[in-house]
């Protein structure tokens, strides 16, 4: 643009193009200039096809202030020349020049180029702004924000990253109690309070998220990615809450089973300890161990044996009953004395039964009649022992361990009879 096509150059070019002498070209151009000026004077507007319109515009007089004196003065009206290019010419110049100017003045127009890029990316304008008139890009660029707002945009994700991390940190908190549930199966009372805080946690998380949202929102209007993230977080949170509820519900339904599994585990450990204790005083160890092994290996068989033995011996017991019943009241006290020593006392907890305790300490659930026998003063109905009852667990002799013995069968008969 620094280049200037001088008058002489224009004359030469015209002469060449039109195949006329420079002199003729000169006369034409001077006439052109002179007549243009004259026409402006007379008509105030000269239209030249292929170029544009020269106008003489009137500037109305206006009031102003003398800078040096401060007094009011009026600036008189005057005329000035304005030029409006033809539509086609204007377009050509906007289009072609823009491209060249951008190349030539890149450092200066960097901002403009960036704005163009933003316009392209966000507004899907493509090449439109260059082609269309001034008003249209205004409307189409409407969704686009000022470049200043891009800076906060870049900050946004940074601020959200902690937002994303915090819930992550909370997740393990939610998972930990889940992991505890199967382990803590026994103390039900302890778990109930444990569940409550769990339910409160998600409630506490939600306000956090809202707070964070409030922090983010005032910053910028453009935060579609942020909202997406929040939705994702919410979905995650809901998912975990549902999972938690399922776990709690599942726990209450399956608690008994869980208890059983747990008892089996614990029982094995206890058995080993028990037999160690038992082994100390006598030689029963081997026998007891052997018996227990048998019991462990063939629990079904023993059950069958019991079933079988019950049938034939029921008759025997009937005979015994006749004899035993009258003596029963007297025999109760000496019966307790039969037990050599008391191993320990066990408290009945929710879900536990005599058979389980029997299995726990004697290795087989079928020894429960001894437990009933040893605790007759405390147990009313052996199939429904109230929670919290302290059960004495006596040590069984070798003879007592024999399930075919008359003593065992008699006790069992009595215990079963006590079930209501």
């Amino acid at each position: 643009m620094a280049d200037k096509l001088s008058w002489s150059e224009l004359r030469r070019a015209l002469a060449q193009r039109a195949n006329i002498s420079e002199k003729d070209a000169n006369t034409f151009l001077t006439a052109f200039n002179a007549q243009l000026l004259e026409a402006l004077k007379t008509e105030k507007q000269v239209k030249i096809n292929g170029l544009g319109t020269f106008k003489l515009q009137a500037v109305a007089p206006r009031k102003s202030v003398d800078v040096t004196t401060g007094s009011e003065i009026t600036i008189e009206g005057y005329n000035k020349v304005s030029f409006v290019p033809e539509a086609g010419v204007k377009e050509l110049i906007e289009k072609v020049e823009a491209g060249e100017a951008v190349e030539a003045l890149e450092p200066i127009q960097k901002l403009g180029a960036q704005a163009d890029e933003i316009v392209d990316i966000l507004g899907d304008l493509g090449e439109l702004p260059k082609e269309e008139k001034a008003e249209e890009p205004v409307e189409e660029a409407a969704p686009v924000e000022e470049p200043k707002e891009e800076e906060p945009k870049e900050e946004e994700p940074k601020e959200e990253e902690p937002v994303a991390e915090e819930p992550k940190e909370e997740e393990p908190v939610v998972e930990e109690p889940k992991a505890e549930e199967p382990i803590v199966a026994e103390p039900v009372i302890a778990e109930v309070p444990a569940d409550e805080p769990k339910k409160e946690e998600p409630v506490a998380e939600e306000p956090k998220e809202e707070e964070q949202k409030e922090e983010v929102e005032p910053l910028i209007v453009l935060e579609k990615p942020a909202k997406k993230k929040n939705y994702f977080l919410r979905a995650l949170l809901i998912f975990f809450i549902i999972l938690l509820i399922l776990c709690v519900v599942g726990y209450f339904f399956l608690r008994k089973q869980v208890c059983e599994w747990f008892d089996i585990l614990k029982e094995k450990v206890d058995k080993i300890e028990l037999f160690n204790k038992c082994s100390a005083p006598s030689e029963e160890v081997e026998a007891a161990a052997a018996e227990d092994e048998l019991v462990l290996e063939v629990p079904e068989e023993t059950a069958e044996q019991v079933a079988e033995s019950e049938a034939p011996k029921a008759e025997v017991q009937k005979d015994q009953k006749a004899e035993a019943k009258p003596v029963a009241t007297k025999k109760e006290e000496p019966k307790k004395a039969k037990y050599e020593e008391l191993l320990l006392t066990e408290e009945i907890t929710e879900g536990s039964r005599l058979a389980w305790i029997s299995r726990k300490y004697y290795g087989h659930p079928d020894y429960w009649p001894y437990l009933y026998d040893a605790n007759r003063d405390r147990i009313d109905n052996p199939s429904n022992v109230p929670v919290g009852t302290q059960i004495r667990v006596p040590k069984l002799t070798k003879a007592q361990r024999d399930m075919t013995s008359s003593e065992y069968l008699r006790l069992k008969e009595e215990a079963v009879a006590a079930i209501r």
Partner: protein
Amino acid sequence: MLTKEFIGLIVSGSGLSKKDAEQLLATTTAIMRENLMDGKAIQLQGLGTLEVKERKERTIVHPRTGERTIAPSKNQLVFKATANVKEELKKL
């Protein structure tokens, strides 16, 4: 004043035929356009210069919605009258 009338003025001022004047005017404007598109200013001796100027990008406010947007920079064809012509035309 339309182009035809202006050509009539040139004819009367230069003594060229109307046809020639039309042709010359057309070629002149063509040369001017080409040079302007090359980024060159055109000097009209004793009258002024036609030149291409960059109009810088600016923020504009939508009058109804109040939305702020950027009007991209563009180039404009501008006529600058010489001081003499300005003075001459100031008072009419």
